[in-house]
């Protein structure tokens, strides 16, 4: 009986469409470049086949639900490519007239894509964190939903300062990306008045990441590597290559907290985040994808929501109209982080809170209390306007 009533009710109340103000078809493409990669140190960090795309499916669905009330349709195409096939794929995407392009690629490829796409295409960088993309290498057609490494480093060091952990022991890897991350931590330390009292390089000597009983060796190597350091309050790990950061907690010579690439990690999102209604995001994502969300999924979801929000408010799908609106003060978006996110008009970077997680819970969220800014406290994270060499957005 109850089932019948339900069924009847549902049929009776078939979706009511309001007369649309404008009929608008919005098409976006998510382009993912799949680089050859090593296995991660932790199995929890294995890369799923639908990384990013699963976030796009949810973003598309969210936009579509809203669009259905306004007579708009949203459609998203997914393209993954090997690096060597990128040029051909890109040509094919652009030939189809795609002008809303979300990119998951490294910095060099992102620049290549942005330049080939040209001014008539709006590019959204969903994953590349290299600070120089927002600095001297910025592009006028490119927005960055991914935070920069310097935003992440600032988020970590603000927390250290809030805890009064001023003396930092910085351990960075030996690859260029690790050194760049180390630079970001050095700048953050200077910016917020912390002191790097000791600095060491953990050399990436290669070798297999999967060995049986590997933890036995780690337990012996890490204490030796970290002994005799100057007195410090906390260890910062700058390990963009995923070589040693996760090995540091509990294995240090001197018992200290670890932050950065191990211990307390800065992330845009994680699967246990529940505050500010995020539980609903998690449930919707898991129902659609059958797995936990990863940062890249959230970032691609956010990129599509940026597009969706701009389309809904402007009644347009034209890249120049959207770009103008997105970079204006009128643009705002809720992102399950307790406050609105919007863009820095001088370099196209999304302002956003950064979550600090112990990989189980949200431990804290930066910016921390007391870090003030004349424009937005979110601008205490990352390159600020006076520091940025980006001039592509000057008009």
């Amino acid at each position, binding site marked *: 009986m109850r089932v019948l009533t339900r069924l009847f*009710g549902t049929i*009776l109340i078939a979706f009511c469409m*309001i007369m649309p103000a404008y009929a608008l078809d919005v098409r976006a493409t998510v382009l993912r470049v799949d680089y050859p990669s090593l296995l991660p140190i932790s199995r929890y960090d294995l890369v799923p086949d639908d990384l990013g795309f699963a976030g796009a499916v949810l973003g598309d669905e*969210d936009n579509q639900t809203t669009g259905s*009330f*306004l007579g708009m349709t949203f459609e998203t195409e997914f393209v993954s490519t090997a690096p060597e096939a990128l040029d051909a794929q890109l040509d094919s995407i652009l030939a189809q007239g795609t002008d809303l392009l979300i990119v998951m690629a490294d910095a060099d490829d992102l620049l290549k894509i942005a330049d080939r796409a040209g001014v008539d295409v709006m590019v959204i960088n969903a994953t590349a964190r290299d600070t120089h993309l927002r600095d001297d290498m910025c592009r006028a057609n490119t927005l960055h939903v991914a935070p920069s490494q310097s935003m992440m480093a600032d988020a970590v060091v603000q927390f250290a300062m809030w805890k009064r952990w001023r003396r930092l022991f910085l351990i960075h890897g030996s690859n260029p990306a690790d050194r760049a991350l180390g630079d970001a931590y050095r700048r953050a330390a200077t910016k917020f008045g912390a002191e790097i009292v000791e600095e060491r390089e953990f050399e990436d000597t290669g070798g297999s990441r999967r060995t049986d009983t590997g933890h036995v060796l780690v337990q012996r190597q890490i204490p030796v590597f970290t002994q005799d350091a100057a007195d410090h309050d906390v260890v910062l790990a700058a390990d963009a290559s995923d070589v040693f950061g996760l090995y540091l907690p509990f294995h240090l010579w001197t018992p200290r907290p670890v932050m950065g690439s191990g211990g307390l990690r800065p992330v845009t999102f994680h699967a246990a985040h529940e505050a500010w*209604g995020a539980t609903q995001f998690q449930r919707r994502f898991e129902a659609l994808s059958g797995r936990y969300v990863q940062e890249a999924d959230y970032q691609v979801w956010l990129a599509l929501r940026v597009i969706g929000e701009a389309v809904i408010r402007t009644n347009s799908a034209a890249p120049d109209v959207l770009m103008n609106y997105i970079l204006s003060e009128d643009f705002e978006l*809720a992102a399950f982080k307790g406050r*609105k996110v919007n863009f820095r008009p001088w370099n196209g970077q999304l302002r956003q809170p950064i979550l600090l997680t112990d990989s189980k819970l949200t431990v804290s969220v930066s910016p921390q209390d007391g870090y003030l800014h004349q424009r937005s*406290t979110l601008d205490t994270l990352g390159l600020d306007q006076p520091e940025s060499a980006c001039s592509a957005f000057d008009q």
Partner: protein
Amino acid sequence: MNRHVNFLACLCLSTFGLSSAASANKVFVSNEKGNTITVIDSDTWEPITEFPGGNRPRGIGISPDGKYLYVCASDDDTIRVFDTETYQEVWTLPSGPDPELFTIHPSGELLYVANEDDNLVTVVDTQSRTIVAEIPVGVEPEGMAISPDARFVINTSETTNMAHFIDTSDYKIKHNILVDQRPRYAVYSDDGNKLFVSSEIGGTVSVIDPNGADGPVLTDKIGFEVSGVQPEWLQPVGMKITADNKWLFVALGPANRVAVIDAETLEVVDYILVGQRVWQMAFTPGQEFLITTNGNSNDVTVIDVAKQRAIKSVQVGQQPWGVAVMPDE
């Protein structure tokens, strides 16, 4: 002109002493983290008891006859119904998954429930305890309101950022109004001439004329400003308007204040300092008092409505969320 609120003990006591002639009503507060309902006496403002409310009790309301307390037990995917005298659970109502907020038809026969996870508004018959209808709405439905003439039910969807006008005769959406980010709560003025929608992340209250010639129309937006408080923490959530349609009270979440708005001029005339993370609110039947739930200080604040002043805070369970007051007998 903002007046400073001096929360002086002597002032509270004298104010409290003057107003104690009001009749006593039970105040029910849902404690989201504590999984309990706290009952407070509105005469003495002392807690009477605390009883289990199901898992993650949030939205809460009382049947027009005062007999039943409805509690959205969000993590139980049901609405629990309690006897307001014995505090015993009498039955549950099917609500659809993750019910958060609902509004009650003036007859008491129907509940309109927002189901956050399923993008649905569920209509529940309180007598037959069955689901009458499910209405697809925007992403993450939350705020629910009913027009004084009961013709429209309003639902706000937090990620779609709309107020949906659902016709109560055929359960079809007749109008949609775009508002600012994360609309949380909707309330009609008693004369039905204004609809207010609070946008938590947008930091504004949208003012809608529901009776425009060509359908509902957004007429104004109310913003907030408190010196010394970062603008991002001014997050409007719960709202209540006085029956004479003069004063709109808006809970500002992590700003720990309730804004007092002249409902005619739409100007914010005062900010009343209350407990931490102020969330939902309810009037006592004569509207002498407004009670606010303060999620991060585990208490409720009692506001003297005429004086627009906080007079008392009462400790309740863990993370108070919703509040409902018994009608006069």
